[in-house]
């Protein structure tokens, strides 16, 4: 069976999760029920059940997309060390389950906004590998035309609002998007993601207060990877129960390394937010890399801890075990899939490397919506004032 059909060479865009790559086995969409690894812990609400409805197709899609995300992040790591990616590069490997599970539970009309660890979420929202690598390397065909960089990935048509560098500033933006969704009566929700470090920002609580007051469909998702750059959770927060921090706002604590738990929680949260207003989800997850590429990640935690989590809680391993135990694919097929993914990523990188840098005139585009602003009102109206020396 030609697994090569799984990844078409002509387009490197990973297919949306709902339309998975077709798999040549007899039962594509057999429903499967999977138990989450841990029960949910709830604050001011009834936790959803541990049994998650899924299908063979979805399992395989989870595996494939997570493997793609993992591979993409590892490739970004090598590119950074080769000095093709500069500046800040925050990698998401280890946390893929959060991106995948969330995507599985929502539609493209629901908005997601996150901080700077956004490569995989962009991919999950329908971005292509080529756009990711081109943007990381600052090329013209990047998703933000090379002008944003690692921390500024956006995809408007998929309701992905980025990509923000300042810690915590995206949460009021997310509540604003939720406000607009309520204003336009869209029946959609906004997932405003932040980390355990950002959970101590005041603007979060301000935004939460307004969301609760105005009943906005905003879902605050705390991706708790237990380290705010170099500061461990217990050294930064008096109360580590981020899901309870909303006080009057209900919260749910979820095992963030289990894609199905994340999916169930997001589904639950969406239903809740549309009816009752904001809810906080705390995803208990972990990042293998350091905070960013300039952080080795081992000065504030032990290598044993990292390898321990990798052995026991790795999200891709969990899905792999499920796939194998449900006989959806064999070990060899999964290995072949991973090989293909590696090739796909390598192809995307090669193509992105060939992409040219942005034109110098791009420096002055998109500052204002039209023109550079000072052009038409320079000393001579006909003269273009915005020019490189």
């Amino acid at each position, binding site marked *: 069976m030609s697994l090569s059909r799984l990844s078409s060479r002509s387009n490197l865009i990973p297919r949306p999760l709902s339309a998975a790559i077709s798999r040549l086995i007899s039962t594509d969409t057999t429903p499967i029920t999977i138990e989450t690894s841990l029960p949910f812990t709830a604050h001011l609400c009834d936790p959803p059940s541990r049994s998650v409805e899924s299908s063979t197709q979805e399992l395989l899609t989870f595996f494939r997309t997570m493997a793609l995300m993992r591979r993409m992040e590892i490739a970004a790591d090598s590119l950074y060390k080769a000095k093709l990616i500069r500046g800040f590069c925050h990698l998401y490997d280890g946390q893929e389950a959060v991106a995948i599970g969330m995507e599985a539970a929502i539609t493209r009309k629901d908005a997601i906004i996150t901080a700077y660890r956004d490569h995989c979420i962009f991919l999950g929202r329908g971005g292509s590998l080529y756009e990711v690598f081109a943007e990381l390397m600052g090329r013209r065909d990047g998703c933000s035309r090379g002008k944003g960089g690692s921390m500024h990935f956006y995809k408007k048509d998929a309701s992905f609002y980025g990509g923000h560098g300042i810690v915590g500033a995206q949460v009021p*933006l997310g*509540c604003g998007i939720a406000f607009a969704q309520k204003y336009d009566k869209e029946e959609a929700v906004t997932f405003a993601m932040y980390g355990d470090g950002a959970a101590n920002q005041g603007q979060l609580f*301000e935004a939460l207060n307004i969301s609760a007051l105005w009943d906005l469909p905003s879902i605050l998702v705390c991706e708790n990877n237990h380290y705010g750059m170099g500061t461990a959770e217990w050294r930064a927060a008096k109360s580590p129960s981020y899901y309870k921090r909303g006080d009057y706002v209900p919260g749910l604590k979820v095992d963030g390394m289990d894609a199905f738990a994340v999916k169930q929680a997001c589904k639950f949260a969406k239903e809740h937010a549309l009816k009752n207003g904001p809810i906080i989800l705390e995803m208990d997850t972990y990042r293998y890399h350091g905070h960013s590429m300039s952080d080795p990640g081992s000065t504030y935690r032990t290598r044993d801890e990292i390898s321990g989590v990798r052995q026991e809680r790795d999200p891709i391993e969990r899905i792999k075990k499920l796939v194998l135990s449900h006989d959806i694919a064999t070990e060899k097929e999964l290995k072949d899939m991973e090989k293909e993914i590696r090739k796909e990523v390598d192809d995307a990188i090669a193509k992105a490397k060939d992409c040219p840098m942005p034109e110098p005139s791009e420096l002055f585009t998109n500052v204002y919506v039209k023109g550079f602003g000072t052009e038409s*009102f320079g000393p001579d109206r006909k003269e273009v004032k915005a020019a490189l020396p």
Partner: protein
Amino acid sequence: MSAIIHGAGAATALTTFNSKKLVAPCRTNLPARSKRCIVVAGSDDASKSFGSSSVLSVRRPQKLIANAVATKTDTSATTGHELLLFEALQEGLEEEMDRDPHVCVMGEDVGHYGGSYKVTKGLADKFGDLRVLDTPICENAFTGMGIGAAMTGLRPVIEGMNMGFLLLAFNQISNNCGMLHYTSGGQFTIPVVIRGPGGVGRQLGAEHSQRLESYFQSIPGIQMVACSTPYNAKGLMKAAIRSENPVILFEHVLLYNLKEKIPDDDYICNLEEAEMVRPGEHITILTYSRMRYHVMQAAKTLVNKGYDPEVIDIRSLKPFDLYTIGNSVKKTHRVLIVEECMRTGGIGASLTAAINENFHDYLDAPVMCLSSQDVPTPYAGTLEEWTVVQPAQIVTAVEQLCQ
């Protein structure tokens, strides 16, 4: 010679303006207003504009008030209605909210209370709580929310109860508001209007008398305008709401009760354009917001002394309307900037640099800039008077420059 070049410049400029949609439709009123409004002792001024299509109006206070703002007497526009500046802002806001259902207002006490300066009075009753939103006191969050909503297509008007409070939202304004259009490669536009009163009031204390123009002026991606009359307040408010770029509209606490007759019809003022307040020959005085009135007061004295100052209200603080300013400099060869901003790094400082850079050859004297003192605004009345520029200082400066 310079006048002839001017005329040609004016003609071409007017035609280019015609193509821009932001020209006030009431320009037909213009000749009538200006003919009767210009009060120039002994000089016959028939020329109207230097490429500026905004209203030429001149204050004619009945008595000289030392540091208050003189109210304008009834101008001779035939149609129109008279109202105060805050009512003009409210009218502009209401008309835009009627016109476009995506426009909403958010701020502290803008809804049920009617706004601390009554700019949003009555709007909550008319449009409901979802469009006129009373926020809790969290500038950082509600400015961020306004910007987030703008990313999806809403057009919020965010009010800071006092401009100084927006310092708490500086991160949102600088990073998200100004830069998102650029860093997203053009995907998102942020059509917000951030407005609020600033400037030195009547003994309000240091923290409530701030002038934030200087802090915001280097943020790329935003536009800044300052209104000074009911006419341009309404026009700028409407233009700002319709603009796709984020606009910060600076109002002044002491100007809210200015009365003027404004046209009945729908008009907007060009956001990037300066307003010619009083054409002249001897010296160009650039000013904005409240200082316009101090300048006009000084202008009366100057005219009596035989000077002919040209007063331009620059209105657009970012970007500067270097075209109008340049034409004026080319005519008069002397520039005085009068502003309420701080001396260090203020709007005047940037304007001085821009003028020196672009029009150095036309200057007969160095550009002089009168700004507020670099001190926190004291409470005591007499001290407060001396932190801002007084008309007497303006007169002295003009005399010094023109000798």
